[in-house]
């Protein structure tokens, strides 16, 4: 059971950016948690995160996810990709959602510095004043035994992350 929760670094975008990267992540924690609040310039209601770990774009990323609006559900999976689909159509508000609204999301990254292959999770909810908006959860597998030293986030569908989007990276120790 984790008994510490330390803010390693954070960023709130003051202008739009194609990606946000946390680099030189210290290996002194047991797990990582990355909290997100994001909106993209994508024309549409929904967007998701494309995630690259340790600048590695080899085809070692797999995911499966389930998402829904309350009236419809959808699942999907992709494997051996060059990045994660962390929320295929959830996790980031698209730019046709209600103005000044942002999604909420959380990555949990256990044993990020170990020499084992890595399993991660992501849960996210978009936000808009409408009857239907996507929420979902994804299980992510990184087929690498390397420690995770950086995390890069961008819009899955090529939009920019908008000003006001914020990202908080926490370290957790088990002792």
């Amino acid at each position, binding site marked *: 059971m984790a008994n510490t929760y330390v803010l*390693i*670094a*954070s*960023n709130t*975008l003051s*202008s739009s*950016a*194609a*990606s*946000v*990267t*946390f*680099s*030189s*992540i*210290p290996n002194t924690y047991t797990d990582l948690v990355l909290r997100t609040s994001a909106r993209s310039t994508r024309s549409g209601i929904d967007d*998701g995160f*494309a995630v690259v770990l340790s600048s590695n*774009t080899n085809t070692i990323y797999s995911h499966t996810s389930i998402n829904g609006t309350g009236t*419809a559900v*959808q699942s*999907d999976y*992709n494997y051996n*990709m*060059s*990045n994660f*689909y962390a929320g*295929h*159509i959830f996790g980031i508000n698209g730019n046709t959602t209600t103005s000044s609204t942002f999604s909420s999301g959380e990555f949990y990254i256990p044993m990020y510095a170990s020499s084992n292959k890595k399993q991660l999770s992501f849960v996210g909810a978009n936000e808009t004043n409408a009857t239907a908006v996507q929420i979902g959860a994804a299980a992510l597998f990184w087929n690498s035994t390397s420690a995770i030293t950086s995390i*890069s986030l*961008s*819009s*899955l*569908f*090529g939009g*920019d992350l908008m000003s006001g989007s914020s*990202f908080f*990276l926490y370290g957790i120790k088990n002792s």
Partner: protein
Amino acid sequence: MDKVIVDCSTGEQTVVPLTAEEIAELEAAAAQAEQDRLAAEAEAATKAAARQALLDKLGITQEEAALLLS
């Protein structure tokens, strides 16, 4: 297009223009994601249509079908 880099060892934050190679990578990844999204939506629509066709054939509603399986 810029990228923001937050150095966790120093706390320093820098804004760096993307290289042409990075832009090409992002565009390729976005195109692939869009293609995958359309495929997933088409699959979901096909399943939904097949489900509704079966319900129509049986003459029951989705709620009644769920009741049968509960």
